[in-house]
């Protein structure tokens, strides 16, 4: 999954191009991307140059994370990061890689069961935040009598089904339309590694080697290791294998790639040295 949009501007706003701008000679306001053609970086409160905001005849303009619509027609970045425009989707967003996970509907996360309530499990998505609710019955073919019994501390791979600032997030391990689990559910055995939000996004790209430049997992697999992984958008990475050494090796390879910001060649080198260590 790429990302989910936090808000949606209904309808194209034709007046966006005519935001009145005060040109005060003593006040030097920074206009993002007014002259540069490379990647555009913004700070909160910057003015976004109107030429960067895409206009599409039919699709509504979509605002991704990191942008705020200040009525009537200002679009203001709220975080520091790279300003990204997707002309085909008529979408704009600000990309960041650090920070704490804030749940959004539709994202896949790995949670830890904190305790079980009367009708749902209380699941922790990140430390020191209020628990998310995972109803006992939102598992594949679960009924009151046959439902997975999760002990405290068990891991679940789930989808965020409800995220609202005034309510605790809700999770589900079953697709509400088909009733199938689609790979979601309890994660038994294995080990959990914390990674940055940016790294989990890279790992979750559909072509992570090509678009996200992550080749560690492919390299480890081609070196003959057998393991199973799951990545949560909340910065959690789960590995399972028959061999305990393989689990720790895969986890170390991914966390090191994340922390040191390794490029493709460095990742290959890291995998080679780790494999040598193993044998």
């Amino acid at each position, binding site marked *: 999954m790429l990302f989910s949009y936090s808000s949606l501007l209904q309808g194209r706003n034709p007046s966006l191009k005519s935001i009145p701008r005060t040109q*005060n000679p*003593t*006040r*030097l*306001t*920074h206009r993002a991307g007014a002259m540069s053609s490379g*990647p555009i*970086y913004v*700070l*909160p*409160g*910057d003015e976004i140059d109107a030429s960067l905001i895409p206009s599409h005849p039919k699709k509504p303009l979509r605002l991704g994370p*990191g942008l*705020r619509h200040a009525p009537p027609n200002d679009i*203001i970045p*709220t*975080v*520091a*990061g*790279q300003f990204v425009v997707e002309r085909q989707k008529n979408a704009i967003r600000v*990309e*960041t*890689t*650090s*920070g*704490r996970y*804030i749940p959004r509907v539709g994202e896949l996360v790995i949670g830890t069961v904190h305790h079980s309530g009367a009708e749902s499990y209380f699941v922790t998505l990140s*430390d*020191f*935040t*209020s628990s998310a609710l995972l109803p006992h019955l939102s598992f594949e073919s679960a009924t009151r009598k046959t439902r997975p019994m999760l002990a405290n501390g068990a891991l679940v791979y789930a989808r965020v089904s409800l995220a609202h*600032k*005034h309510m605790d997030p809700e999770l589900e391990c079953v697709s509400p339309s088909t009733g199938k689990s689609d790979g979601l559910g309890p994660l038994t055995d294995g080990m959990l590694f914390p990674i940055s939000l*940016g790294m989990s996004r*890279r790992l979750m790209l559909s072509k992570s080697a090509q678009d*996200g*430049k*992550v080749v560690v997992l492919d390299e480890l697999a081609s070196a003959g290791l057998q393991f199973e992984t799951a990545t949560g958008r909340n910065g959690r990475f789960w590995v399972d294998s028959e061999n305990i050494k393989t689990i720790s090796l895969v986890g170390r390879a991914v966390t090191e790639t994340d922390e040191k*910001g390794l*490029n493709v060649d460095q990742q290959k080198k890291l995998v080679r040295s780790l494999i040598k260590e193993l044998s």
Partner: protein
Amino acid sequence: MAVSSQPAADLAPLPRADGSATFSHHGFVVTAAVNGPVEAPRRDENAFEALVDVIVRPAAGVGGTAERQLESILQSTLRQLIPIRDFPRTMIQITLQIVEIPENAYENAKILQAQLNLPVIPALLHAAILGLLTASIPLKTIVTACTVAITEDGASAGRVTLEPTAIEARRAKSLHVVGFTGDGGLLLSESTGSFSLEELAQVLELGEKACSRDHKDGTDVLMEDDEVSSSSIKYFIRSVMQSKAAKDLHWK
């Protein structure tokens, strides 16, 4: 006592915090750790707003009333920047540890308890802003602050000085800290000493010029004030955040 007038920062030095930054400027070094949005303590929980919790720790000893006053000044400034209504029932915790204060070879560096130290506020504020930016906590805008002193004695009586040294600050008639938002709005103004309304207007004018500069060399704006040497904090914040974003997104 060569105090560097160039700002310096180290982003995300603390691995366990959501966001952290070490900021040094004019001899002050401050480390900020930002965590949030996390669950607020039950008794402080607000059903509609996020709680902004600022903790200031002094370079030596335990915090006292002076630190509590700094905390309240920073808290009221920062809660204007964070869209607190977007994170109800949560807490955004900003811990600011003063690591170094300017060494002062000439003035008697007696540590007086319960005395407000105004010149440390810009360093605390900039460290907090960098911490919040690294923690990717949404902000409405950024704020930059500076210290201004009005000198008392000698031929230059009544002169406004931007970013005074420790000695100048000590001998000043009045000391002011002003903070301006990205679009030039006055957000923070704290003063000590005696000054007239005209002097305050001068202070605000100089402060706005210094804070709103967004270019590496401020020659175009501050030509008339022979204060060209002081670098633009806003430009500095922009460049460090830009290089961090470029480094984090190297794979794109």
